[in-house]
């Protein structure tokens, strides 16, 4: 042979390392700290601005005005929140609401995924219920409560029912979208590999659908969470102390700072769950190279 195999091997290996470039040299811990600070300071600033505006509004309008005792400044309200956090009642409420949230969401996850999988695979089923699923998504979940209360009475079941109706369509739609958007080239590659039926679905279509499915799961959570809080305010169950119940009690007692305290808890709860979803989404996109390398650092 005119040229040796080992020379060819070396050429290929050399080209590979040229194409991939040098690994980045970075200072690990300093980098992590800088990253954390970059992510944190805008949030801290936003909170500071809100508190300052609140304090300003309060100082201009109500300071020294004993008649308007309902409105409290941020200091009083945050004090209220701090003292509530010291009592078991708020934590019980968080636990109660959290448990219902988890149960309702898991139920919606199972039902939504099953419906999405079936609808995406069975054309007549899609023709029949495809548009109904999208329609359900646009329906405000609170409109379901009278129906649910008549059907289930004032019970957790009524709340779960509405949560599922709110969240399952988003989850199903996410999966359907993912399946529809599976690149035809990958399907062709899968077919030439001999993937058929269930194997095709399991090894190719489902993993390919994951990003859209995750988006559906995230949206489904938002719907479930809203439905849950609406439910807890509307369906007051005897013996249950949930965040909704605390909010409702604050309303009855004209306790504005108490209401704001619970609202802050609800907000933080929502933010924390959202952060979890974002983390998962980011991890999936990073694995697939769907992140802009410049933005990902």
């Amino acid at each position, binding site marked *: 042979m005119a040229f040796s195999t080992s020379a*060819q091997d070396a050429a290929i290996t050399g*080209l*590979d390392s040229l*194409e991939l470039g040098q690994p980045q040299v970075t200072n690990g811990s300093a980098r992590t700290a800088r990253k954390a600070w970059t992510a944190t300071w805008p949030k801290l600033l936003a909170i500071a601005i809100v508190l300052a505006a609140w304090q300003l509004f309060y100082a201009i309008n109500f300071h020294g005005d004993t008649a308007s005792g309902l409105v409290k400044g941020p200091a009083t309200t945050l004090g209220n929140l701090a003292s509530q956090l010291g009592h078991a009642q708020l934590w019980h409420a968080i636990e109660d609401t959290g448990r219902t949230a988890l149960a309702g969401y898991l139920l919606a996850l199972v039902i939504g995924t099953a419906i999405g999988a079936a609808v995406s695979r069975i054309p007549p089923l899609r023709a029949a219920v495809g548009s109904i699923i999208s329609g359900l998504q646009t329906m405000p979940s609170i409109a379901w409560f009278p129906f649910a209360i008549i059907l289930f009475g004032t019970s957790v079941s009524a709340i779960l029912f509405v949560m599922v109706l709110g969240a399952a369509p988003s989850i199903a739609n996410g999966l359907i979208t993912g399946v529809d958007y599976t690149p035809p*080239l*990958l399907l062709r590659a899968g077919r030439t590999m001999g993937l058929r039926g269930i*194997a095709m679905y399991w*090894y190719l279509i489902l993993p390919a659908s994951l990003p859209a499915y995750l988006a559906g799961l995230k949206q489904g959570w938002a719907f479930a969470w809203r439905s849950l809080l609406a439910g807890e305010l509307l369906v007051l169950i005897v013996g249950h102390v949930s965040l909704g119940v605390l909010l409702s009690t604050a309303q009855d007692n004209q306790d504005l700072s108490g209401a704001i305290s619970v609202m802050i808890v609800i907000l933080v709860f929502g933010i924390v769950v959202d952060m979890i979803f974002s983390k998962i989404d980011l991890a999936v996109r990073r*694995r697939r*190279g769907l992140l802009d390398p410049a933005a990902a650092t």
Partner: protein
Amino acid sequence: MQRRAAPAIPGAPPRRAPHDTAIKLTEVSKVYGKGAAAVLAVDRLSLTVAAGEFVCLIGASGCGKSTLLSMVAGLDTPTSGQVDTGGQRVAIMFQEPALFPWLTARKNVELAMRARNVPKAERARRAGELLDTVHLAEFADKRPHELSGGMRQRVALARALAHEADVLLMDEPFGALDAMTRDLLHDELDRICAERSLTVLFVTHNVREAARLGDRVVLLSSRPGRVIDEYQVPRTGPRRIDSVQVAELASKVTDRLREEMRRHGV
């Protein structure tokens, strides 16, 4: 580096006698659409490829090259005529690597074997070997987006080889790569095909590439596609894209191809 035991010499004895037919297309036609909108993509095309032969199909746009490969791969059925691959296993490679982005290089190769129920340990061992064959052993655990275009296409080649196919269909597999990478991959493909005595049907619109790789270059007409000329390439030894022999054949083929294009310009 470990190698398969097969001799890496072009012209080494193939698994079957050379006169064995690997692919036989008889009067194959393909029509897309119906009625007035019907398009005749391939017209009564006949072609025979011997076992172990490397045939390059070349033609201008609209010669139905990709349609032809799809039919040989069994992804598409001819409107009339017969496609016979004698029940051999057929693997196909596209211009895009079409790797699954959520799997590592190794898992991509393994998946091709999973579809055929190869046991797990065997899959892992074979995937490692195949990635070594395409010089990617150390990148086995990288995902496609972490690899360069040429490396991805080599993973795709390893995946195609994982089918244990006798026939490899390649649809402009190096079309999207830069010239330097393409040259190296030509050498790679030469070596691998010789080692495994593969039958290859290689579609390209790069005349030099066809002259560089093929044992035979088959020229197709455009709209509809049919065979208009054939060039046998004598196996005199290793070729390179800049060999005199390759250049001569390429210019002959180019002239014939231009003639065909002019026919459509009138």
